[in-house]
């Protein structure tokens, strides 16, 4: 079961997407993914969820009040860098597209109105690509471990870093303290 987070400011879109993705599994090659959909109509609420739960894929609208899709996906990438990222939008200028590719590194841009089959295969492809990447990394680490290029501690540190980005680095404050979360630092 792959967990997918969808953000769109329009509830009708979310409902239509859930109907499509609930009915049929997304397939790519010989792999087939059944999906668990979590949907939000506000990017801020979605980000909050992304901080607490793990997702395999983020799919976002581009034009939303409060925060646009690119900002959202950028923030989501910082929290869960291994998740795949898609944009589903009816309108984007070239500038937005450039930002989406350069700043976020989206896997796919899907236009509205979308074709259900295209949407499902795009999701399947993105998930398969993600699986392949993770597998690759794991195998590469195994080989490095066997060759003695890397210690088990390093492998574990890398795994922890993936789960909680930044956890293997100590963030020193100016007064010698250890800063756990810069967001709560007093601004002066």
């Amino acid at each position, binding site marked *: 079961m792959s967990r997918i987070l969808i953000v769109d*400011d*329009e509830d*009708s*879109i979310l*409902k*239509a*997407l859930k*109907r*499509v993705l609930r*009915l*049929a599994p997304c397939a790519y090659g010989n792999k087939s993914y059944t999906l668990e959909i979590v949907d939000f109509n506000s990017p801020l609420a979605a980000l909050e969820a992304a901080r607490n739960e793990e997702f395999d894929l983020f799919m976002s609208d581009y*034009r939303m*009040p409060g925060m646009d899709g690119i900002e959202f996906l950028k923030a989501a990438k910082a929290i869960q860098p291994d998740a795949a990222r898609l944009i589903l939008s*009816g*309108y984007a*200028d070239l500038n937005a597209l450039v930002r989406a590719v350069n700043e976020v590194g989206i896997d796919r841009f899907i*236009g*509205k*109105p*979308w*074709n*259900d089959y295209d*949407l499902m295969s795009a999701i399947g492809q993105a998930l398969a690509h993600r699986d392949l990447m993770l597998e690759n990394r794991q195998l590469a680490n195994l080989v490095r471990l066997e060759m003695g290029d890397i210690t088990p501690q390093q492998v574990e540190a890398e795994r922890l870093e993936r789960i909680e980005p930044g956890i293997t680095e100590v963030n020193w404050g100016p007064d010698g303290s250890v800063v756990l979360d810069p967001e709560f630092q007093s601004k002066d």
Partner: protein
Amino acid sequence: MTQGFDREWQLDELLDAASQGKIGPALSALLGGDFALTDQAGKTLWGQPSPEARREALILELEPVGYLLSSSASPAALSAARQLMLSLLRAEVRFKMASTLHLESVAEDFESLKREHARLSESEARYKALSGELEARVKKQVGELEERQQMLYEAEKLASVGQLAAGMAHEINNPLGFVRSNLTTFEKYLGKFAELKTHPGSLADGWQALDLDFILEDGIDLLHDSAKGMERIARIVADLKAFSNVDRASQEYADLNNCLREAVSMVEAQMPPGIHFRFDLLPLPGFVCLPGHINQLFFNVIRNAVLAIADSGRPGEVKISSEADETGIHIRIHDTGVGMTAEQIGHAFEPFYTTRPVGSGVGLGLATARNVVQAHSGRISLDSQPDVGTTVSLFFPTPP
């Protein structure tokens, strides 16, 4: 007049035939009848000069102008006659000089006048040519300016069409997206119902196994959603049509006060509680307009006023006033709603600019309003303060 007044005078010029006739007998009497007069070249003017006669030169300045000849007269008489001749000739020279000078200066004046006149007429011609050229240039530049203005207007129109298309793409693609997807899903739902026919076991078992309770419920919900989406697209198209004045109605006389009342009654039908209207309508002259478009304009502006009050969350009042003066009709629509920031006012007339959430407005209201006002050569302006209210002022010029 080829010779100047101060030239050397010839004797025959000084003594013409008439004065010779007067002087000749007098001299002849003085010198005893025997006398002759020649000029400096020896040409005889009077008498018969004999070769052995005595000559007295008549010298006015340096050179002799002529000779007085006599063979019988005494030298004293000849000398006296010469003196007499000289004084006569000098008087004559002076007279000639004066009259020639006078003539010359008059002629000079006349010449210079003529020259002046020629110069004047020349410069006049030049100015005429210049002014003609200038007029042509001004005309050309005015033409160019008008052309540029037209181009600018076209460019602006194109830009607003582009903006329109971009906004429209987003507004229409959203409902189009979910409607299309829903219909595909619905096809699959119907497939599930078809499966029921071939499903082994009782109908109720099959119903249960295929989860048709959910399919039915969701199918109805899906159709409902799709219908709403279609309505949204239809509304956008209708707004666009009004915006672009596609269906142009014919012009007619209308009382704008009536139009205002009609628009208010349309808004009142869907008005939240806590809002009331106050009218301050003075009699207006008939106005030639497109009443359908004017109604749309008033409807848009009054609906905005009502929504602004609803957004503020407190009871409020929409005050509508109209009056006419000799230049035209003034209409003011004032609300006590949320008001607008300076930035919002700047964008207010842009098509597809809206402060409202998706689905509740496409942002064509004021853009349409401005188009209608401009089509009637009128003016529309906004005056607003956040949390205080907004006043929309409209002006329609009436022909004098």
